[in-house]
Every structure is written in structure tokens, then in C-alpha cells.
């Protein structure tokens, strides 16, 4: 195989593979990218067998074929080379030559036939898929992904639940068992469909392909695999097997006490007050009284802190404890100028946070007994 490619185009293609190639793999070929010729150029692919990415790149193919070599090394080489076209060709015994201007690299490769297949559906059934603007999907992921469990052993919580509750709707739900974030948006196409769990790593890769631009993303779920395509990029990932908790059950039907407060003042106060709270549990107490909210924390090792902010609240004074991180996480992904409403029932029941003027986002957080 031999082709000529612009440095920029090669970097674009390799960039997406960097998060997927395994850093410490026992299977050497998983640290590699597969470069294959197509009719109008080449494609660059990488997979860890759970998540796979492929990007079509413009290139002048002189000799068709395929090659595979270390993804990181190739990326580093391309990055350090000056802006000029590169020529890449395969040599005997899977060696690869990269040359640009007066620079020439000869690097080892592996037999491209050994390269594992991208995750693909184990059965084909008719699925229309949905289309969604990049910015919208990006926002949805941002508002859900922080709530995904960090505990690798709890498989069913280790990803975002993608669901289509009704035709023309997409809902993302994530929870770690202590808080739950749920966002619903209108999308084009698709009928109602039961939810699937997209793994944490896959979610990260999706966010990466959505970083820039506003092209439409096509999402298709099929036979245990989620398939996304956007422009020249295709992303596929194996779904998490496991049952996502019945999230509807945890959303309280009504809240007896409601507190309205600005995102910015609340976030700032939480950040300050939690500085002295225990570094692990970050317990912060909320004392709510008509017209005001007092946040406080006590840490026997360090000291204490409190701050009062203005808030809309009518009703009896009421106190409840939370892990400050759980509130900071959600407030950080909301617009600073927004106003949120937090509903409570009592100090052992969940708090529910909504954004003013938005009905399709809600965040449920369990209190902490301080």
C-alpha cells in the first residue's frame, strides 16, 4: 500500500483513535491503527473490541491495500513533522515507511489481516435510527455523563441509558445510585424504543466526535451495538449488558417544599463552603428558611464554614444534608445565569432539581445524613 496524505488530514484521522487504543494492552495489535484504502482515499480505524472508530480521510492512493502500525507513534510523528504532505507505504514484513520532506521513518507494523473487526451488530433488524444535531446531543451528554457511576464493578450503572420514550424523543439517563440525571429532547425520526446502556468509554468517544461543528449525527442501535455516524467519522460500540434501574420509580411525584435559587450564587457558595468539608464525603448542610438558604460544613480536622445566600422559599424552616459534589456537578453543567428550583419532602427523601423554564431536565439527588 502506498498513499500521500496532508499532515492535517492524517492528524485528524489519528486524533480520534488516540483515546481508543489501549495503553496497556496485552494484545499488541490493539495499540495499532488500521489504515485501508478506499475508492476515494483511505480510512483510519482503531478499536479496543468494545469501542471502534473509523474516519475517512482524503488521500492520494498510489497502491491499494492495508497496513497497521502503532497509533501513538504515528500520531507523534505526524505531529512533529512540518506542514507538508506525507507519503506512507508498506514495505516487506509489515514494515512501514513514513516520509515527509527530508524526514524518513521506518517503523514496525503488523499483519493487517490480524486486525480485529469493529464492533458490529450480531443480528440485523430493521432500525430506522434517529438524527440529532451535534450540539444538542453534546449538551444532553454533558448533562448526563457526570452522574455515571465510577465503580467499574457495577456494570448496569457504568454508562448512559439512551431511551426513546416516544416517537421523536430521545432521553438520556445516568445514575450512580446516589443521584440521577435525566434529560429528554426532541429528535428527528425514530419510533419509541426501549433503552440501552452506552458504556462510559463510548460516551467519552461520542463527546469527542461532537467537539466541533454542528453537523447532524445519526444514531442507530442494533443487536447489542450502538452505531453513530457524523460526516466522515463512524463510531461503533458494544452496549453494556445489564438492566438499568427503573429510573421513573425514583423521581418523586411531588415536592412539598420548593426552593428557587440562582445557579451562580449557589454554585459559588457550595464550592467555598465545601472547601473545609471532609475531602471524601463533602457533606454540606443546607438550612432553608423563608427568603434565605444557609450552607454550612464542619470538619473536625480542619474547621468550619458557612455562607448565606438569597433564595426564594416560603414555608417552615428545614435542614437537609448533601454531598456538595453532587450539587456542584450538576450546577457546573447548567448555564451560570440560570435559575434552579430544588424540591424537597423531608431530610431523608430525595431532592429534585429542575431548571426554570425547562421541563425536560431533572436531577434527583439523595440526601446525606450528617
Amino acid at each position: 500500500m502506498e498513499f500521500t496524505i496532508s499532515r492535517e488530514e492524517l492528524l485528524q484521522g489519528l486524533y480520534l483513535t488516540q483515546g481508543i487504543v489501549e495503553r496497556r494492552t496485552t494484545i499488541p495489535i490493539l495499540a495499532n491503527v488500521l489504515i485501508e484504502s478506499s475508492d476515494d482515499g483511505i480510512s483510519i480505524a482503531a478499536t479496543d473490541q468494545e469501542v471502534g472508530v473509523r474516519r475517512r480521510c482524503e488521500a492520494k492512493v498510489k497502491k491499494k491495500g492495508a497496513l497497521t502500525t502503532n497509533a501513538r507513534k504515528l500520531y507523534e510523528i505526524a505531529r512533529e513533522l512540518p506542514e507538508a504532505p506525507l507519503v506512507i507505504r508498506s514495505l516487506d514484513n509489515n514494515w512501514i515507511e513514513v516520509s515527509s520532506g527530508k524526514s524518513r521513518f521506518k517503523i514496525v507494523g503488523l499483519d493487517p489481516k490480524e486486525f480485529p473487526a469493529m464492533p458490529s451488530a450480531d443480528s440485523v433488524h430493521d432500525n430506522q435510527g434517529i438524527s440529532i444535531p451535534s450540539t444538542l446531543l453534546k449538551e444532553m451528554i454533558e448533562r448526563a455523563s457526570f452522574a455515571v457511576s465510577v465503580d467499574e464493578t457495577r456494570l448496569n450503572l457504568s454508562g448512559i441509558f439512551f431511551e426513546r420514550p416516544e416517537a421523536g424523543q430521545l432521553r438520556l439517563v445516568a445514575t450512580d445510585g446516589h443521584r440521577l440525571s435525566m434529560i429528554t429532547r426532541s429528535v428527528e425520526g425514530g419510533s419509541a424504543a426501549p433503552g440501552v446502556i452506552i458504556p462510559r468509554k463510548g460516551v467519552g468517544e461520542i463527546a469527542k466526535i461532537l467537539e466541533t461543528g454542528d453537523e447532524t449525527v445519526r444514531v442507530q442501535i442494533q443487536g447489542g451495538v450502538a452505531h453513530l455516524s457524523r460526516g466522515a467519522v463512524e463510531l461503533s460500540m458494544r452496549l453494556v449488558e445489564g438492566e438499568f434501574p427503573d429510573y421513573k420509580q425514583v423521581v418523586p411525584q411531588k415536592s412539598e417544599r420548593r426552593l428557587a435559587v440562582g445557579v451562580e450564587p449557589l454554585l459559588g457558595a457550595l464550592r467555598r463552603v465545601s472547601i473545609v468539608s471532609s475531602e471524601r464525603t463533602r457533606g454540606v448542610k443546607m438550612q432553608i428558611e423563608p427568603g434565605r438558604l444557609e450552607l454550612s460544613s464542619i470538619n473536625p480536622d480542619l474547621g468550619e464554614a458557612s455562607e448565606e445566600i438569597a433564595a426564594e422559599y416560603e414555608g417552615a424552616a428545614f435542614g437537609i444534608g448533601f454531598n456538595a459534589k453532587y450539587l456542584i456537578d450538576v450546577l457546573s453543567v447548567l448555564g451560570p445565569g440560570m435559575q434552579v428550583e430544588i424540591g424537597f419532602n423531608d431530610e431523608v427523601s430525595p431532592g429534585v432539581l429542575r431548571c426554570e423554564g425547562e421541563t425536560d431536565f431533572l436531577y434527583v439527588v439523595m440526601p446525606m445524613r450528617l
Partner: protein
Amino acid sequence: MLSQPSSAATGRIRVLPPDVADKIAAGEVVERPSSVVKELVENSLDAGARSVRVELEDAGIGLIAVIDDGEGMMADDAVRAFQRHATSKVRSVEDLFHITTLGFRGEALASIAAVSTTTLTTRPNGDLGGTRVLVRGGEIVEVRAAGTPAGTRIEVVDLFANVPARRKFLKAPATEVGHVSELVTRTALSFPQVAFSLKHGKRTLLDYPATSDSSERVAQVYGADRAAGMLPFHGRSPIGEIRGWLSGSHFSLPSPRQIFTYVNGRYVRDKLVSHALVAGYSTLLMHGRYPAAVVFIEIEPEEVDVNVHPAKSEVRFRRGGAVHDLITRSVMERLRAQPHPLPSVPEGTPLTTMNPSVTQLHIGLPLASGRTPIAPAFDSPTFPARPGATPGADTYVLRRFEPGSSPAVRPAPMPSMSPASEGEFSRLHVIGQAFEGYLVCEGGDSLMIIDQHAAHERVMFERLRRAYAAGGVQRQRLLVPPVVDVGAQAAPLLAENIADLEGLGFELEPFGGSSFAVRAVPALLADGDPEVLVRDLAEELTDVGRSRRLTQAAESVLARLACHSAVRVGQSLGGDQIRALLQAMDNIDFAGNCPHGRPAFITLPRSDLERLFKRT
């Protein structure tokens, strides 16, 4: 001593009626030289001796002589003493429940005489003439008058000459002498007012002069230095009283050999007692390590049955739980009050790679003859390693880490606060992570190697323990309470303790059968799977909770939970994580060991390093 009024009349020793004899645990008393010595020494003590001398030849095969200055025996008694079930100490079944003397079965002399040639020479204090009785293979060969000092001298020769099978089972002479020496030592500890000595051939192995002060006897036994580090302790509960000496938390041994426990003056080697003792050390000792301790328990004779085993080292308590509680609680309280627990490795922990003989083997150079021994491992209180206390005495002991030892650089401590940035650990220069399990750091004039799992576990454990002590572990409520089946064994334990479990951070709700809905878990551990946490809790409670109340099991439960939530060996840590861990280590009262008792870090002083490279 004798409970009956001592009488000069003949016939004090009676043959026990069969019903009494039968009540007494049967069994062969004489197994080895040390069992002979044990019986004879106990007889001497029962006879009110102020001095007991033991002499051996040929590890006891040649000769065992026990010489006392006790009350002695009159001629009739001297003969009757060799009859089976002849004793002056028990007369009826009723008496068996009020045993205050050491020997009581009236079969020791008979058994010994049956397997040896025994000479008894004795003279009661007031009498002018003494008696000598010669018994061979159980047959009285000769009884005659003899001049002798007041007291009793028993000489046993040709032990097991007529029982070759027994003789074959004897261990190497050094081992048999070791048994005797241990026996004399443990007896001496409980009779400080009696002088003891042990000779083997010409060598005097032990020599404990009489003293009125039991701590003086402890010093004679352990050596003054080591004894200085022993913490005297005392405790009392309705069941009885306990007192003695304990080694501090910075000391441990690989075997329980330095633990001497006594119930009503009688040496016992009892599972319940030693378990309770080690339990009192809780997490200060790692699994398989033991303290040194001398422990005397005094309880009503009715509360204890010593007639369990002919070797008489085991006892049966009528109320074992109460005795266990008394011991554990007293030990715990004493150790808690221990001044300044030092972060350290247990004494005698050999660092194999630092063993000079190992090094020598590799590089084939003779060991520098002038090698100065490494300075004592601990400043105070300290036990210098006793020769032979640890197998392979030629091992280095790592020194206690003292990063802040220069008073000039150490900031004045703030009252009741420990600012993280000023701590010993966070001031270390981190060199890196080795084997994805150990943090290698440099501080002051030492290298410090931290076991990341043990350290983190300790951090987690201290946090939990502190939160628990402060009135409750913070609880994170769960969105979807999982239902966990803990099994029939653990379920009642959990159910009984539901209210107390809240203090540990758990809110559980019975869910039928042996299942519980988990409403909240300790916030510190909330990242973990609540099902796993509850299962751990249940398991730990079944392990430890049977005999103890939850408050006492709490430590073990917290230790278990901490262990499971700590970073593992094999997990690579980033710079931030290492920093956070070191800072956290500053924030806890670091006793140096992980809750399982393994050391969390070791220090290698530069001077030791240099010595290893033969630079000094």
C-alpha cells in the same frame, strides 16, 4: 497452699475413694522431662517452698532433681505419696470444686515413679530425722532414715528406661531443656516470692532470686530493658479481676510464646484467654503476630473448671463471654492510654534484602567483621531484640521514621488541628511508585517506602473510626435501595442491631426472610457497590459478632470495609492521588499499621543504605 489445717499427725495423705478418683480426669501425666518437672515443682510450691531448684543432667534423661525447702513429709506420708490417688489435697468430690492448690489428683508421684527410678528424700521442718524412699519402676525398693536439710528433694533417674516407646518420642535435648526452661519461667512469673533456679549439667540456665515485687520478677524474666517497655495494666468486672503487663503496640512476635496467662495463679494456655488478649490489641497487631504479656486473672474458683485436661493447661470457664470481655476491655483500655504510639514496623520484622548474610551470599564478600549493630529500632519504650527471640537474629530492623526530628524545621503544632500541608508525610519528596503498589519517598535522612494499599486502608479506617467515635458515620441515602439476602446466619445479627448499625453508616430495613433493603451506606464508602458493602458487613458480624456486642465488633467491621475500599496493589496512582494519600496520612493518628496489622510503611535510614553498600 493447703486448705486443710496442717497436722503433724500421721496419715495426712489418704487414698482417694474410687468415686473421687473417677471424677478426676484420667490420663498419662508424664510425657517428657518437663512434665516431670512440672509435677514436682508444683508439689514443692504446694508444700510452701520459698526456694525451688531444678537440676537436669542429659536433658532430664540422666537426672531430674527438684529440691525445695517446703514443709517436707513424715516417713509414713513419704511412702504413701507414691500410691496412686494418694493426696493430701482433695478429700471429697465437693473439694474438687474448690481447688486452690496446684496438684490435686494424687497421681503425679506414682506416675513418675512408675517410669523411672525415683528417690525421695524429705524432712519436715520441725523433725530431727529425715526419710529416704527409693522407688524403681513403681515398686518401693527401700525406705530408710536419712539425714537431709528440711524440705524435699526428689531425684528422678533413668526416665522412661522401662518405656522405650516414650523415650523414642523425646525431642532433641535442646528442645526438652527448652520445655523445662519455659515451665520454670512461667511458674516463676506467678510465684515471685519464691526463688527459682534451673541448672543443666554445670550450666545455670535460670536464676530468679525471690522478690516481694512481681514487676521485679517480670524484669528478671524479660530483662530490665524489655520489661521497662511493658505496660502494667489492671481491670475489674463483676466476674473477677485481671492484672499484668503488656507489650506496647509497637512490639510484636511471630509466636505466642511470650504470652503467659494465669487463672487463679495457675498457668493456663487457653484459646479463649489468648484470643481475648489478642483481640484487645485489635488492629495494632497483624494476623499471626503476638504481643508479649503476663496476665493474671483472679476469679471465683466456682467460675472455673481446671479439671479439664490432665496437663492442666486448659481451663473451662462457666461464663466464658464475661471473662473474654474482661480481658479484651482491660487490654484495650490500657493500650488506648499508651503514651505516643510510634509509627513503626514491628520489632523483628526482617527485611530480607537487607539481611547482611543474604547480601554476602550474593556478592561473595566476607561480612565486615566490625559491623556495628543497627541502633535500637525504637527510642522508647523499647525492647532490644533478645537473642533468639526471632529466628535468624542477624537481621536488620528498620528504624522508625522521624521526618520532623529537627526541632528547627518543625512548625509549632496548632492546637487540636493538624494542617495538612505541614505534615510529615506530605513533606516527603515522592520519588515514584514501584511495582504499582509501593510509593518510594525521600524525607529527612531516610528513604520511606509506603505500601499504598495498607496506607490507604489505614486512612480509610481511621476516617471511619473517627467518624464512628464522633457519634456516627455519615450516611449516603440510596436512590434505589437494593435488596440483599445476607443468609440465615447473618440475618438475625443484622436485625438485632439495626439501630446500632446506623452509627456505622448503614440504614437497613428488614425485607422478609434473610433479606434487607439497603437505604443508606457509609458516605465514605458510597462509591462502592452497596450490596458488596452489606455482604461484607454481614460476614464480619457473623465472624466476630457472636460473642461480642456490636460496639466491640464495630472496629472489625470498619476495618473490613476500609480494606475493601482502599486502593489495591497493582493500581497505578497519579501524582495527585499520591499527594492526596500522603496528605490524608498526615491527617490521621497514624499508628503505622494497616488495620490488619501489616506495616503501612517502612523507613530505610540513609546510614543503613550506606552500610549495605559498604560505604561505612
